[in-house]
């Protein structure tokens, strides 16, 4: 799967795009990212699969494009 990273999350993860092995579901993805990048715990973000937002947990499939979107507040 492909990971697209937006806003302030790119500072934490260090890139705006990443290809990874597909976790089982979005909760697993969040957990493994948090383990790798503990600062993610401080930033609320939502997950979208193939350009549709996910509420709660959702299974992931090979080939999915997953976006991580934090809240933007500047103006």
């Amino acid at each position, binding site marked *: 799967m492909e990971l697209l990273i937006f806003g302030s999350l790119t500072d934490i993860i260090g890139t705006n795009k990443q290809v990874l092995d597909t976790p089982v579901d979005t909760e697993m993805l969040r957990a493994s990212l948090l383990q790798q990048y503990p600062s993610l715990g401080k930033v609320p973000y939502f997950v*979208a699969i193939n350009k549709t937002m996910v509420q709660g947990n959702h299974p992931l499939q090979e080939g999915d494009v997953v976006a991580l*979107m934090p809240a933007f507040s500047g103006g």
Partner: protein
Amino acid sequence: MILPGFGLTAQENLARARVLIVGMGALGCPALQYLVGAGVGEIGIVDPDLVSESNLHRQLLYGPADIGKSKVAIAAGAMQLQNPAIQISTYPIAIERQNVLNLLEGYDLVIDATDNFQAKYLLNDAAAILDIPLIYGAVTRYQGQVSVFHFPDQDNISYSYRDLFPVEPVDAISGSCESLGVIGVLPGIIGCLQAAEAIKIITGIGKSLAGRLYTHDFLETTNYEIAIQKNQQIQSMTRDAFLLTDNHAMIDLDEIDVEEVSVETFLELKNKGQVFVLDVREREEYPPIDFSDAQIPMSELGQQIDSLPNKDICVICHQGIRSVYAAQQIQAKKNVKTYSLKGGIIAYFNKTT
């Protein structure tokens, strides 16, 4: 104008429309200019700030000669020259829980051009309660976002900013343009998109961004669109519940420095008339005193901070502990210097009698 789908009716709708723009910074300036250009009949603009030098690269309605002047006053003046037919109302105030509903009422549409989460959530919740379409915009470094909330999408579903982020994040996490820096053209693009959404909603042409979160990337000149999904846990908020919610739950009061003054310094400040003396003890507390300008018990302070004067305030209580907390609350909400009498009324009477 000769544009298919944009005839006399569309122009009349614009002339009859009332739009409120909250925030006269890097998003609000371009949004205002294009709405004035389009002929929106009545526009309200809200911003408590004065123009500062660091604004000029991205807030193009202001020039060096405007530094220190009210943003809404300068913006209104410039727009009045541009299109004298338009009525512009200026509100040089910060939006707060207690005034936001009154501000929004009567407007057909609100543009969120603010730069902090507290304002964004207040606007979102108030627009939801009043059922007014809200055109959200925000930027962070090289990316910006636009969406339309509280306005039905093609499936007749309306979304809220709380569908994206149910709980208000702490502002320090994300930062503002002022603290992080931004290239002025990015909020310019986003503010123009907000004006475009407003014009589409007012005239009824095209397809609005309702139900879609549109993110523009400045560095790559790409955009990414996400279909928003309803968060079923979000319940609609009543006007009463909204007004009773604690406005400052998210502010870390410990970060606010309050100067604790001795009885001597307190007497000096008071005798020179430099401070408003506020007693925050409960009414039944002993002894009564005759040297305070007002008594607002700590338990009622939250609701009454707005009634305090805009001058330096020295807070007093029995021992000087509650008064520090009260002074922090006041300083968080009002932009005045606050003091706390060290040792409180006990110290006062021990020194003076």
